[in-house]
């Protein structure tokens, strides 16, 4: 039974990955914006690093400070519209074709969600590599880099719920696109651009709850100083809670749609 489920989810996931990587616009679109931010902002605000608040972050340059945030942004963008693919296939009947085969209904959903781990991790890895090319470092080496990818992948898979729930509930791509935009401020209010010490009090409060901030603050030491297991632990807990809440809602919405 569980073997059947893994078998189905495996082949459906391979299909989803194929669908994603075969369209270059998919991954170029995801990587372009963080890359531009990384490149332009690191030049534009080069001297911002002199501000006292930055010292405790351990980053030697603004590029080094910026890179972890843009890696997290990439994982965020990788899944920001992820729910629309399942919507397209619900509408054009492909989901019915799968539902008419003797598989678990949930395999279809897992086959859409599980590959987002790989997609987010690979996209984040792309920005990580590009930031190193631009001059950032990874203090913890290959193992640290692998950890960054795993954290990004897990975050992407959890965050995907913000796109899947509206998609499955509204059955409208426009609505899904618009609702996705509502989540963008959460990314921009994170510690991607400036450390909390330089933020107004209310933003500091927001960031003590912001899952994207937890991700960024776990990635940053891995790049600039060394393993900060406390930060990694906090990020994992934040991702787990986020994932549990959002993916339960996704599962509920999916069952409602396909009832």
């Amino acid at each position, binding site marked *: 039974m569980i073997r059947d489920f893994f078998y*189905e989810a495996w*082949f*459906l996931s391979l*299909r989803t990955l*194929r669908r994603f990587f075969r*369209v270059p616009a998919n991954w170029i679109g995801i990587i372009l914006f963080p890359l531009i931010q990384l490149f332009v902002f690191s030049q534009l605000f080069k001297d911002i690093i002199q501000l006292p608040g930055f010292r405790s972050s351990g980053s030697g340059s603004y590029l080094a400070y910026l890179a972890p945030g843009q890696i997290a942004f990439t994982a965020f963008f990788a899944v920001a519209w992820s729910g629309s693919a399942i919507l397209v296939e619900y509408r054009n009947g*492909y989901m019915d*074709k799968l539902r*008419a085969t*003797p598989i678990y209904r949930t395999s279809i959903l897992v086959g859409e969600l599980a590959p987002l781990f790989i997609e987010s991790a690979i996209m984040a890895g792309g920005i990580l590599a590009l930031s190193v090319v631009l001059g950032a470092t990874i203090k913890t080496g290959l193992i640290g880099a692998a950890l960054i990818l795993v954290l990004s992948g897990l975050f992407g898979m959890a965050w995907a719920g913000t796109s899947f729930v509206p998609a499955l509930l509204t059955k409208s791509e426009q609505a899904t696109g618009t609702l996705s935009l509502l989540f963008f401020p959460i990314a921009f209010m994170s510690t991607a651009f400036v450390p909390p010490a330089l933020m107004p009090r209310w933003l500091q409060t927001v960031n003590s709850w912001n899952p994207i901030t937890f991700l960024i603050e776990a990635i940053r030491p891995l790049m600039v100083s060394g393993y900060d297991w406390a930060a990694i632990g906090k990020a994992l807990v934040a991702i787990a809670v986020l994932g549990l809440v959002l993916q339960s809602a996704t599962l509920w919405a999916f069952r409602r749609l396909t009832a």
Partner: protein
Amino acid sequence: MPSSVIEVENLVKVYSGGTRAVDGISFHVGAGELLGFLGPNGAGKTTTIRILATLLAATSGAARVAGFDVTTQASDVRRRLGLAMQTPTLDTFATGRENIELIGRMHRVPRAELKRRTDELLELMGLTAVARKLAGTYSGGMRRRLDLACALVHRPQVLILDEPTEGLDPQSRIALWDELERISQDGTTMLLTTHYMEEADRLCNRVAIIDNGRIVVDGSPADLKAGIGADTVTLQLDANGPEDLARQQEDVRGLLRGFGSLESVTPEPFGVRLAIRDAGRAIPELMRRLDGNGRVVHVIGLAVGQPSLDDVFVKYTGRRIRAEAADHPIILGW
């Protein structure tokens, strides 16, 4: 094994908006039989098929496919069912081969068998040359054939096809008919829907005419047409102007008075049209009658037309089927 592979009893579907799409349909399809659902758009064909394919819950009534109940034993039904919906549903970012293989895997076709079966189906559907191209680049006819290949990959006992030739050019349609005929002859039980008379006539052992969610009549195309009664015989007359034509038409009427199987005589610009039961057998006697008694009738042409399913449809519904796009938009939220 039950003799009826598809059994439907008093099926009703009322959509949430209140549309009574299926209004008490009952029918059986025997093993190896090919039943055609013939009906205009909105008749309830797709709705019935979605219920049989376990994709939609009926409001009431029961349906069994291959001996299994579509609601309580859905996975048993799915294992034995091949399905192709009204518009081909393909993964457009996968190649032809990948499309077939994925559906085969979901049906648990063993790996070695899957490879063989996929090759065979690609060949059968004339897709071998494009097997490695993305399905999104395929033409309409190729998509249909690939969709059909997906439906056949696990050698289903029952094949259900919704408007299998919708949107195809005449040439591709005829090629697909040949294919469907071959599949049917291999012993697969088939149910297909269509709003093309010709298609139902050519392919189906039995046709059920469906209108407004009900089956109005069913039977073999030949029996249904025989039920219409008369054949149409047209006589072309050689006349010198309209007065002569009128005289000849009157003479035909007079000569045929009391002719056994004649049902009606209708004047036409070219001559007369007769409705005659069993025209094939009546024609020699008919010609003898027209040839004599001093009245001169110049018959220069004679044609016998069989009644078509079109006539059958008109007889039972009082309307003609219009050939138009069969798609309707899915109703969406927001």
